[in-house]
């Protein structure tokens, strides 16, 4: 039996080398042996993408992208379709999970300098994936056609009116004079299309990754054979363990707090005549929303929001430090964590209305807090990172992955050599 399978697979592989390619890329693919758990999030992101696509396809079989029926069809999925509530909550919480995983993946890349030579294009493709994900998530949130769907879409599409010929652009996006049926129709079509574009860019991301292999917590290149281990079984099993923990958390939200990340207003059907008191985007957009609102000038605000993501494209060149890992960059390490905290504060700002005043911050208004954190966000990329590249004194790098203890390792090696001599 198995010899028959081997013969068939050999027959195929001789003509179409897909099996040996998979074997090469997944099985033998040499990987640094010192990857920590932060390296789990790349494969997790890939898995979430697949789950989102599959659950989305089944949801699309029952969903109706018409303003008259969209809200009802989602409730039809929740109440009448077998396991429909599971599919819908899986997909809905999956969006939040996807962003959590991808944000951690990006922060990991920043901490360990994974964007540096020779992985600049790998990083840029990742930022492209982030942009596509954001567009996909935004359009997906419109589909249930609740109040937040409608008003979120109205506010965000209106941002384009800040640009020259803005009103024409907005009308073109809407397919009319307001967010309406044509808008919902095209958002549905694009929400179905974009994930497949993401899959395409993910493949490029993987090709770029496999060209030079994974970075590692030490940020140094692999030098000797014992620095590497084959991807399978070592990282397949580690990824499966990580998947188990991740799926546990995801399942907790699906089954026990399915609306934790959502807004109650989105269970009210969209009504163009009633504006909700607080229009807030989904949590994963809050830091960018905060940057947008912090700047009193409309065009500048939109440019700053877009710039907050586009600055990531230039990170490989803004950072001129040759040492990759923050482990050996004492000042960068501290500033990195401050940057992370700053991102959370930006998110907090985005969730609150601008005129709120925080007495525990000495009567600072939310608007002011947003302006300070916006400046800090850009200062990290444009001032701190380039300056550190010039002036930071890095600590000595270990000789190799297998000799992580810097001088001690050398000394032991030397004494061993001396003893042998």
């Amino acid at each position, binding site marked *: 039996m198995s010899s028959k399978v081997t013969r068939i697979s050999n027959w195929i592989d001789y003509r179409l080398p897909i099996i040996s390619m998979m074997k090469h890329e997944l099985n033998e693919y040499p990987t640094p*042996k010192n990857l920590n758990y932060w390296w789990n999030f790349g494969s997790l992101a890939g898995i979430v993408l697949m789950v989102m696509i599959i659950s989305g396809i089944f949801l699309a079989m029952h969903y109706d992208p018409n303003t008259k029926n969209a809200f009802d069809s989602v*409730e039809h999925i*929740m*109440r009448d379709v077998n396991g429909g*509530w*599971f599919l819908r*909550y899986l997909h809905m919480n999956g969006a939040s999970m996807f962003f959590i995983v991808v944000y951690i993946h990006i922060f990991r890349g920043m901490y360990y300098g994974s964007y540096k030579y020779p992985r600049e294009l790998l990083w840029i493709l990742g930022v492209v994936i982030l942009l596509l994900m954001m567009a996909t998530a935004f359009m997906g949130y419109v589909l249930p056609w609740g109040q937040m769907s409608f008003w979120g879409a109205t506010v965000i599409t209106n941002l384009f009116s800040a640009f020259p010929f803005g009103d024409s652009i907005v009308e073109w996006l809407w397919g009319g004079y307001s967010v309406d049926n044509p808008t919902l129709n095209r958002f549905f079509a694009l929400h179905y299309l974009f994930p497949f574009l993401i899959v395409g860019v993910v493949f490029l991301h993987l090709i770029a990754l496999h060209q030079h292999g994974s970075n590692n917590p030490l940020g140094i290149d692999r030098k000797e054979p*014992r620095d590497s*281990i084959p991807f399978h*079984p*070592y990282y397949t*099993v*580690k990824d*499966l*363990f990580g*998947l*188990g*923990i991740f*799926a*546990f958390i995801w*399942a*907790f939200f*699906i*089954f*026990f707090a*399915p*609306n*934790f*990340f959502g807004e*109650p*207003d989105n*269970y*009210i059907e969209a009504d163009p005549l009633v504006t909700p*008191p*607080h229009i*807030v985007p989904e*949590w994963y957009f*809050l830091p960018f929303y905060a940057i947008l609102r912090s700047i009193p000038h409309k065009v500048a605000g939109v440019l700053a929001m877009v710039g907050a993501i586009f600055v990531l494209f230039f990170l490989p060149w803004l950072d001129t430090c040759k040492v990759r890992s923050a482990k050996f960059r004492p000042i960068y*390490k501290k500033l990195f*964590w401050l940057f*992370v*905290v700053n991102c*959370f*504060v930006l*998110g*907090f700002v985005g*969730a*609150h*209305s601008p005129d*709120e005043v925080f007495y525990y911050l000495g009567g600072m208004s939310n608007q002011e807090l947003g302006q300070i954190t916006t400046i800090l966000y850009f200062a990290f990329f444009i001032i701190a990172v380039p300056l550190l590249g010039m002036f930071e004194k890095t600590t000595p790098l270990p000789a190799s992955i*297998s000799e992580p203890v810097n001088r001690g390792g050398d000394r032991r090696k030397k004494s061993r050599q001396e003893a042998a001599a």
Partner: protein
Amino acid sequence: MKKLLTTAIVLAIFYVSHAIAGGDDTETLVRQDWAFEGMTGTFDREDLQHGFQVYKEVCAACHGIKRIRFRELSSLGYNEDEIKAIAAGYEVKVGPDDMGEMYDRAARPSDAFPPPYANDKAARAANNGALPPDLSLISKARVGGADYLYSLLTGYGGEVPAGQEVSEGLYYNPWFPGHQIAMVPPLQEGIVTYSDGSSPSIAEMAKAVTTFLAWAAEPEMETRKQSGIEALIYLAVFSLLMYLVMRQVWSRVEK
């Protein structure tokens, strides 16, 4: 670094919970120990049936529950004959018949609850311009959920604070946004008599009807939580096994 990481995580939780609660401006609601809360929570069947009775005899005059079909009342503990009898008490507009006319017939278990008004305009006309919302999703559609509904229903009759305007035809209710609500105080002592002859208090009626509405918004909740326990057990065992396999496999790697 560990310390900073902890700070980041604490901030993350703080920020997410704030984002969900929508800030500090929601007043503290009257909290209840709901039987359906928590990981193993289920709906109290007696509360469900009482709540349905309160809905039917009080709320239904103005509020529909259009997403519920009569047959789904089996979740409340009614049997097939009881559901048929309940449905038969309603008339639904169906058709057109062979002559092209719409006609009324007694509802069947497969029908949804008919709406109290022909359309939104008719509803507004009958209610002084206010639109009584459909209640099928109400407990998911309001910040605070069940606690909000309970607070609202029991929140009438308090002293109107100085400076609070209450317009003609509106009622003071501290839990409603703007504190003025068009809904007439719906629950009164003696408005409902349960089948055992008892006459519930306002608080008891509010609790029962809130339970019923929580069910109406999430009829899948009991199945969902039951499957959830199974899923979590499965994933915990899977993770543990994978952890042990990982330890075994990685023991071959020279540190």
